[in-house]
């Protein structure tokens, strides 16, 4: 077994063992925290596909997380409690949003692409505020967690944790396969030299759009999980600083690296938790760390890890 797959197995084993160890230690709170970290890791990984692997600086990825979250939340409010119905529809909604936003935005380049993607997310923010029937500016409180059937009670934090873990693990494995498949090679090459890719016969717009949509779809799933985790959705999910935060996680964790989204989400959220325990001014500490990473660890945390074997 290679060093890398050994590390992966070890991480997976630790993740599986964690709730079992946490309970006797009285660390139940951290199970909920871990679920939250994993959900953001999923969202950040989906952005990593678009931004890191695909090279598309989308500043509106929160639009898809929000679309998934709101769809899941609205369906739950309207009485559709099963995740087997609610979550696929949430993913579908995010996918449709990604197709529309991607198709339009990918006709632009550089800063214009950044601004158009940001604009779309902002528009959805204001639309969400306008939806008075579903909470408007206050957001929408959800009565309970959705139901999974199969004897699984998602209200139990441990059960929910394992569900999220399974989904995140599947997503990471999917990304791992995708990166090694034809598609992964193509988008990596497009990121490096799009002009040449056109000149050797690839319809680059099409591939970028597919990449963008896959990222949006997975983000939608993360959104649905977020809605279930918090039992709450609110328009801030769409606000540009949310897209910024996801971007920060990807950049922090390592752009274009498999574990980039996971490392970044974990680092940022755990730093927040750590600093919050000591001071209400935790943003200062987090900001300082981010600045330090940018200036001194240009390839992000995954890059540091790679350098040290």
């Amino acid at each position, binding site marked *: 077994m290679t060093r890398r797959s050994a590390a992966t197995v070890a991480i997976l084993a630790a993740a599986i063992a964690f709730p079992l160890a946490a309970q006797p230690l009285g660390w139940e709170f951290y199970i909920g925290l871990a679920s939250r970290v994993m959900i953001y890791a999923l969202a950040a990984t989906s952005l990593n596909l678009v931004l890191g692997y695909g090279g598309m600086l989308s500043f509106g990825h929160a639009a898809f997380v929000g679309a998934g979250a709101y769809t899941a939340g609205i369906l739950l409010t309207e009485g559709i409690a099963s995740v087997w119905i609610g979550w696929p529809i949430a993913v579908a909604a995010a996918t449709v949003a990604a197709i529309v936003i991607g198709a339009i935005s990918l006709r632009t380049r550089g800063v214009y692409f950044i601004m158009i993607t940001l604009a779309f997310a902002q528009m959805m923010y204001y639309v969400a505020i*306008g939806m008075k029937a579903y909470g408007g500016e206050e957001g929408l409180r959800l009565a309970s967690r959705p139901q999974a059937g199969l004897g699984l009670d998602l209200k139990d934090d441990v059960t929910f944790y394992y569900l999220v873990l399974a989904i995140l693990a599947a997503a990471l494995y999917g990304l791992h396969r995708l990166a090694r498949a034809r598609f992964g090679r193509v988008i990596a090459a497009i990121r490096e030299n799009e002009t040449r890719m056109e000149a050797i016969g690839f319809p680059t717009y099409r591939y970028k759009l597919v990449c963008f949509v896959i990222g949006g779809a997975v983000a939608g799933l993360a959104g649905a999980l977020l809605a279930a985790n918090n039992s709450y959705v609110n328009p801030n999910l769409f606000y540009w600083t949310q897209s910024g935060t996801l971007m920060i996680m990807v950049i922090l964790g390592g752009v274009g690296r498999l574990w980039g989204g996971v490392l970044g989400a974990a680092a940022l959220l755990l730093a927040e938790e750590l600093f919050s325990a000591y001071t209400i001014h935790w943003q200062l500490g987090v900001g300082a760390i981010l*600045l330090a990473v940018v200036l001194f660890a240009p390839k992000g945390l995954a890059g540091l890890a790679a350098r040290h074997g």
Partner: protein
Amino acid sequence: MSGILLLEQSLNGLQFGLMLFLLAAGLTLVFGIMDMINLAHGSLYMIGAFLAAKFVELTGSFWLAVLLAMAGTAIVGMALEMSVLRRLYARDHLAQVLATFAIILIANELVRIVWGPQVPLGTPAALSGPVRLLPGLEYSSYRLVIIAVGLAVAVALYLAVTRTKTGMLVRAGASNREMAVAMGVDIRRLFTLVFGVGAALCAIAGAMLGPILAVQVGMGEDILILAFVVIVIGGIGSIRGALVGALLVGVVDTMGRAFLPGLLREFLSPPVASALGGALASILIYLLMAAILAWKPQGLFPARG
């Protein structure tokens, strides 16, 4: 829809647009010359507003406070540029996003620690009353002064950029940085200066809008997005574009918010009209940006050849 109301809202739009211009002018030059995405620009606006509020407390004079805030924010801006931002010019946009986003967090928290989440800033006493512009139109004298200040700064900026040697260097840098450097322009010093001036402009906007919009931590994040929309519409690197873009955005946003819900009430039920109108009014400027980009992909007056 009365003519008086229309006129009043146009003036409001003009006022907001001119203040947006102050923010956008600095931002467009930073982006245009150094190709740097500076998310912390909104933080300078916030710092300017807070400084102004504090200096009013200290000196009792609103206008002195504004001048002091300009100086203070310019110093903060230049210090920031020389210590951190300078290292980002050579880096890619992602690194710039990460770093300047971090600066937003740090700035927000530092301001909160030093001054608290919110400070009061009132209109100067002499200007708290309305002025009669036309029979039936009484307009806030303070807002009129904002318009006057905005216009004065716009003219001063225009003269500085087109008539002075430094201004010419700035325009050269915005249109083609490599060429300007090749021709011997000390782009680093020029840039610190540009940054300082941009910061001072942010301070004016922050100080003057403070009495209207409330001086609080996080005020920079909302207005930053508008500023980016303005410079994309106007054309990156162009001050003229920033002015036109800012006026467009200011007027469209203000008029939209004022009249759209009412307009929709002609066709839809009041609650629907109000909700839809509000949402539509807020996204109007993004639709404007998309429309302008569809017509002119580089914005209205792109500086880059």
